[in-house]
């Protein structure tokens, strides 16, 4: 047995599952899970042994020999792909069932397998041409998954926006790989850090992969695609697909030379994405759109880790650089796990109530205890609360930054504000998830749909339980997972391989275990007391009113109002209000909506200008042959003038 056999088995299983997607849903799920398990096995092999697997074949594809490679960096992402892909695939069996979606469910299964296969190929291929092919196929299969429910107009719009943005990024990648191939003489990828002339190409890679990763301000496609896709698709988009952008940045900053100062830019983009991502999340009223903006935030945290690692590599500080990178890479896993969990939870709410609008939800904890508890666990994890995994990775980033402050050098100047802003991000994320959990799961139902919600079934619950277990495991035993992250760091920079595990990581693990044990003990005690004394049910937030109604509760907007006010310079909220003035007010209303600032204030005006110019250019084509001949003459004269002026 070696990783190659496992990978071949995984690939074969996924291929078979594509065949089974239309006729045999059970066979599809079985082969999909088997494939995911095999891939996870291969990734675990690489991560525990710290070795790398490489396979060169004589088989030509597009004139290039197939060259596959699985090392620490790609194995880390492959493991995440296997876990999230398997869990969310199982979830889709109930969530997007044949009974409700007779036409799109089989299609969805086939594209799901295809997506996993192509992401896997992106991770494995070590040839620029094959990387591009796999990347494009991955983007296209994600498009078909996003637009699974293509009858809805906003789904189609989100799909097109995703496709356009994705291809803008791919265009930059085409330039990147072609220039790389022309400068090095072949398409083969691998370590080439001594070719210092390749450094400027990193900017192209950063743009191309940055669009996919959804870093601010290239995140324009992300909120609508995540919000409108079916929830299991949102889970893999947020959990794995956008991480492929991170993979690209980490992969090529590890293999290739990086221009001076690129680390600062990456870290700066990370800080901006983190703070603004959470600020935009606070302004959202749509549950899934809010989660989507948290993806921007978490990508920001990951990029902070990667960016400071690049800074450390440039100035030669392996000790704290390895910590920052390890924090960023562990956050890739953590965000993949808890964000997938949250999206599956949101999907289960959507499945039960038919709405993502938070102002129509409320009081769901009573009807959906499993979903609510698992969602709350994910919320605690994403807010970076101990003893869960979000705290571990953010804490590693903090450790790296604190060590950077202690070292002499320019890094101090950047590290201190980064620490402050990371803390601000964590606090705002906590506020945001208090809002979500409070508005969606606590209080009284705000609508008929929320009143008649029902708990999800076994498949959906099971998938969420697997992801939640992952979150808890990383939180309780961080030193086990340090090995995996360390293998990735060693694959990124060989000379960082001997970075020691921070001693406090073990301590953190034990503190977390203690916290968790006391938490479980406290919960058991409360449970016991409740059983003994019985429950007394009352309204939340009745505020002393004699006859409170569900409409008197805090809404999502009013809960976050103070914080969104601080960020109104970038959120640019649109308000329509009609205040009551007279003693017996007849009419009063208040409505607030947070636009997609970058998309609506920057991209759309530019796009309108381009459309206007194209419209003007179209008027040149009117069908009058006389004028066409005139164009010919003008063209001829222009060519003649050019020829004459250049020959001089």
């Amino acid at each position: 047995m070696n990783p190659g056999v496992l990978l071949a088995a995984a690939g074969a299983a996924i291929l078979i599952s594509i065949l089974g997607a239309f006729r045999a849903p059970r066979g599809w799920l079985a082969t999909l899970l088997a494939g995911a398990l095999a891939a996870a096995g291969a990734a675990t092999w690489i991560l525990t042994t710290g070795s790398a697997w490489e396979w060169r074949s004589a088989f030509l594809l597009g004139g290039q020999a197939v060259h596959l490679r699985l090392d620490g960096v790609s194995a880390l992402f492959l493991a995440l792909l296997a876990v999230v892909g398997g869990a969310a695939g199982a979830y889709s069996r109930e969530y997007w069932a044949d009974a409700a979606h007779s036409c799109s469910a089989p299609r969805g299964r086939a594209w799901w397998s295809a997506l996993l296969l192509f992401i896997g190929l992106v991770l494995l291929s070590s040839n620029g041409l094959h990387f591009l092919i796999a990347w494009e196929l991955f983007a296209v299969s994600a498009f078909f998954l996003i637009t699974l429910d293509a009858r809805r107009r906003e789904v189609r719009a989100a799909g097109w926006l995703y496709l356009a943005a994705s291809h803008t990024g791919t265009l930059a990648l085409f330039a990147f790989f072609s220039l790389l191939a022309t400068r090095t003489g072949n398409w083969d990828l691998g370590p080439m850090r001594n070719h210092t002339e390749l450094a400027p190409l990193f900017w192209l890679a950063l743009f191309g992969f940055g669009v996919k990763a959804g870093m601010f301000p290239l995140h324009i496609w992300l909120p609508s695609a995540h919000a409108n896709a079916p929830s299991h698709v949102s889970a893999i988009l947020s959990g794995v697909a956008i991480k492929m952008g991170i993979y690209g940045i980490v992969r090529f900053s590890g293999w290739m030379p990086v221009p001076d100062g690129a680390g600062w830019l990456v870290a700066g983009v990370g800080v901006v994405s983190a703070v603004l991502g959470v600020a935009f999340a606070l302004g959202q009223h749509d549950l899934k759109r809010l989660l989507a903006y948290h993806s921007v935030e978490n990508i920001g945290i990951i990029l902070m880790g990667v960016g400071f690692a690049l800074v450390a590599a440039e100035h030669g500080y392996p000790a704290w650089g390895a910590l920052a990178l390890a924090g960023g890479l562990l956050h890739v896993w953590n965000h993949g796990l808890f964000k997938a969990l949250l999206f599956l939870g949101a999907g289960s709410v959507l499945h039960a109530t038919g709405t993502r609008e938070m102002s129509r939800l409320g009081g769901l904890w009573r009807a959906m205890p499993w979903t609510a508890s698992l969602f709350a666990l994910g919320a605690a994890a994403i807010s970076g609360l101990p003893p869960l995994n979000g705290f571990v990775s953010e804490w590693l980033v903090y450790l790296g930054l604190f060590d950077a402050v202690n070292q002499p050098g320019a890094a101090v100047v950047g590290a201190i504000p980064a620490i402050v802003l990371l803390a601000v991000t964590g606090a705002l994320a906590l506020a945001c998830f208090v809002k979500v959990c409070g508005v969606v799961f606590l209080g009284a139902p705000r609508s008929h749909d929320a009143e008649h919600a029902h708990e999800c079934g076994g498949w959906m619950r099971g998938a969420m339980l697997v992801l939640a277990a992952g979150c808890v495991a990383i939180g309780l035993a961080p030193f086990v997972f340090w090995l995996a992250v360390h293998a990735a760091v060693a694959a990124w920079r060989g000379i960082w391989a001997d970075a020691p595990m921070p001693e406090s990581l073990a301590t953190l693990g034990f503190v977390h275990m203690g916290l968790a044990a006391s938490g479980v003990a406290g919960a058991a005690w409360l449970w016991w007391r409740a059983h003994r004394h019985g429950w007394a049910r009352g309204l939340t937030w009745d505020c002393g009113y004699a006859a409170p109604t569900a409409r008197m509760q805090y809404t999502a907007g009013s809960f976050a109002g103070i914080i969104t006010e601080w960020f109104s310079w970038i959120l640019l909220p649109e308000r329509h209000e009609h205040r009551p003035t007279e003693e017996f007010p007849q009419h009063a209303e208040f409505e607030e909506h947070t636009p997609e600032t970058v998309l609506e204030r920057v991209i759309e005006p530019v796009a309108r200008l381009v459309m206007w110019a194209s419209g003007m250019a179209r008027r040149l084509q009117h069908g009058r042959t006389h004028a066409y001949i005139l164009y010919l003459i003008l063209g001829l004269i222009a060519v003649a003038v050019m020829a004459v002026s250049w020959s001089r």
Partner: protein
Amino acid sequence: MNDWLNLLIGLAMGLNLVALGTGRLPSLIRVAALQGVVLGIMPLVIEHELRLLGVAVAVATAAIKGLVIPALLRRAMRTANIDRDLHPLVGFLPSLLLGAAGMIGAVVLAHRLPLLPEHHESLLVAGSLASVLTGLLLLIGRSKAISQVCGYLILENGIYMFGLLLMHSVPLLVEGGILLDLTVAIFVTGIIVDRIQRAFDSLDTRKLTVLRE
């Protein structure tokens, strides 16, 4: 020899202006025919000694450009029952002025081009450029298909004059190519004229815009 040639070229350039200034289709066709005949004579003037082939080519050119094609055009004009281009896109006076300006421009340009020494004295290049410009002006400015055919003819005449520069190196090839070109162009335009007439009951090419997508 050059004097005779330049005289003929001057005549052709004058005919260009007449073509631009007239609105009546019969006179336009007559001008094009006359220019064809003038062009037919030119090779005889250029050649130092008359050979049978050269004479045959000259006679064929003059016959086709001066007789056959104009006859075809006259027939088309009679079938379509029109004899005037009443609504030109560019008026007669402006096109005349533009043509004159183009002619001056052509002469100036021909002087500045890096030509072979033996062509410095002749007006061939200037005349050819002026005729091409005149042809294009007719194509742009006139609305009736028959005027446009005449524009094509004059444009081809310009190209023919340019081809005369190469008379000594590849005489027969140039002649044959140009004749073939012209014949095809006239055939195609003849068919188009017929179709336009049938489809729109008019020869106004502006109505062709309804064909766009």
